[in-house]
């Protein structure tokens, strides 16, 4: 499993190069065909027993992060967010700026002693900045510039019985697809594994991948929100760690076919793989593009529950990884009879 290596790599939306190069190297020996399209999607084909249908598995390579917006004359780095990040999680965090040089920085905040009346004001995004220790903008010439990507400075680590890293959303999906490819199974139908770009900025990569592959059936593999802690009301948990892959009924962009929902359930029951149903319609994913793309297609979403998603530090359960991989592998090897009905 290469989840640890994947999460430690930098790759905000549009800047997935290092992730793509790593994955391409990992799966090279197991691919019948490899394509990289205009948007940077890495598309890996596995030839099936039957080429009359096209199946697609998709996970996105990009992670949420920041981008250099402006360097002030005093050497302070202003940034914009890439993907959905709340300002409240940023003060006093550590980041890495991926410029011509790689620079470490911290996100500053006024000391609590000096905040006076502002002490009860929520953090505003435009008040935040990065300090890399530069005394002026001249110190930074030739090292970083506007547009450089910025990632959270978080290293993969084991946390009790859980795993901790940045970017489980969605390197966990990428890692599962790599593990599926490494099994070297010949599927029933021709199958494309798509490592997609730019999900976090509006589901961009999956749109062009869907156009090219025109799948009859697709599965999106994703890290999803788990808000299972005692300070949150039960109806906002959405998913829970350790209870298996989450199967979606609907998300903010798409209502899944009951046929696919039942199919996923029956496969997990047949193989006695635990699963949970995603309880809340929250967030969206690439399934929207796939389901409504071109002539439309059957699509389902299997999600690994991840706590504190879209923050520098997220947690997931190793058993959820294994069970999601097992369910994805079982689906991969199923006879997709619903396609021929």
């Amino acid at each position, binding site marked *: 499993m290469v989840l640890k290596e994947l999460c430690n790599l930098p790759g905000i939306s549009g800047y997935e190069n290092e992730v793509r190069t790593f994955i391409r190297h990992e799966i090279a020996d197991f691919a019948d065909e490899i394509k990289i399209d205009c948007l940077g999607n890495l598309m890996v084909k596995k030839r099936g027993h039957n080429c009359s249908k096209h199946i697609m598995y998709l996970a996105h390579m990009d992670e949420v992060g920041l981008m250099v917006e402006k360097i002030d004359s005093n050497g302070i780095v202003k940034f914009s967010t890439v993907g*959905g990040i709340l300002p*409240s999680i940023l003060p006093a965090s550590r980041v890495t700026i991926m410029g011509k040089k790689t620079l*470490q920085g911290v996100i500053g905040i006024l000391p609590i002693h000096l905040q006076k009346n502002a002490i009860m004001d929520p953090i505003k995004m435009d008040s935040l900045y990065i300090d890399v220790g530069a005394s002026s903008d001249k110190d930074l010439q030739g090292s970083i510039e506007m547009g450089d990507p910025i990632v959270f400075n978080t290293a993969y680590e084991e*946390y009790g019985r859980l795993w901790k890293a940045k970017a489980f959303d969605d390197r966990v999906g990428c890692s599962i697809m790599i593990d599926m490819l490494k099994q070297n199974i010949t599927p029933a139908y021709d199958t494309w594994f798509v490592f997609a770009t730019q999900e976090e900025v509006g589901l961009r990569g999956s749109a062009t991948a869907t156009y090219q592959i025109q799948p009859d059936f697709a599965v999106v593999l994703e890290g999803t929100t788990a808000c299972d802690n005692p300070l949150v009301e039960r109806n906002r948990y959405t998913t829970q760690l350790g209870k298996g892959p989450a199967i979606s009924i609907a998300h903010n962009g798409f209502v899944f076919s009951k046929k696919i929902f039942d199919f996923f359930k029956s496969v997990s029951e047949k193989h006695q793989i635990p699963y949970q149903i995603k309880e809340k319609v929250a967030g969206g994913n690439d399934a929207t593009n796939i389901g409504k793309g071109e002539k439309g297609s059957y699509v389902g979403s299997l999600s690994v529950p991840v706590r504190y998603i879209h923050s520098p530090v997220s947690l997931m359960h190793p058993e959820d990884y294994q069970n999601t991989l097992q369910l994805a592998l079982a689906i991969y090897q199923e006879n997709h009879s619903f396609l021929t009905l």
Partner: protein
Amino acid sequence: MFDWEKNLQQITDLYGLSGEESSVIQWIQKEIAPFVDESYVNTLGSFVAIKKGKGSQRAKLMISTHIDEIGFVVGAILENGFLRVEPRGGVDPKILQAQECFVRDIHNEMIPCVFSTVPPHLVKPEERTKVPSYDTLILDTGLEEKEVRKRIHVGSGIIFKSSFTKLLSDHYAGKTLDNRSCAVISMAVAHELMTVLHDWDVYFVFSSQEEVGTKGAGTSAWEIEPNVAIAMDVGFGSQNGHDGLPLGKGPGIGIGPNFTPKIVNDLRECADNKYIPFTLEPCARPGGTDAGSIQIVRSGIPTALLSLPLRYMHTPVEVLNLKDCKYIVELLTAYIKTLNDEYLEGLQWS
């Protein structure tokens, strides 16, 4: 050579909440031993290391730097092993979401943990406009509840998890640079004094419990009865939104009712003679640092304050400039050289 990076790295990694400074003391004791003549730990848990002078009057200079750090203690163990916390010292709850910490278990092992966040997908509009409080923040260790209950109890200490990191132009970031960086400066001064002739005995006090009301410095001064005391602590550095002490331009020298004018003037003069840059730091009201407690011990102690400019104070990403640390060593060494028998008489009010 004095290894600044190694010392700062090691001392800032240590656990030492206010009132629980013993790991820091053990480390300083080992590192400073070759530079000093004797040392001891006093009742309130401050560490005192003494470098004897050559003078006949046995006059005493006390240099006080606190070694405790801000953090939290476990307030309650909740279902599934989540931890509710109580702050120890002044921590801004606005910096805590997604912040990594260590909780110390009953075997003194450090367990990594993180403050919970609600992701943007699920956050309610009213939560976006509210500052988090300790009622809306809990820690997640990733351990099962029964494991948590075995290893952690109410009162277990929690510190930030943040490693000492080099930034550009002599700047460094890390946790508890407030005030372990000044403790390392004291060690460097002790190291320097090995090759310097000085009359007065120098008492390096590594004080406890500053962050909960400058407790250790006061009791240490009572016991030592120094003729002069200099507190050394971090001061608010210049940063976006605050025009404070500029970083890399030398220490702040405190000026105001808390500080004895003669010592302030002598420190300024030493700095000028040695071309050491500094910034005057007006403090209109006494308090806040160890100097506040020391000045009013017994019948009063002549006191001054040196400030190391620091950005983002009381966060896990405090930033200092190493040049300032070295300037303070130079300044204190020069000042210590001026301390002789006549200096005592000069301290009397006219």
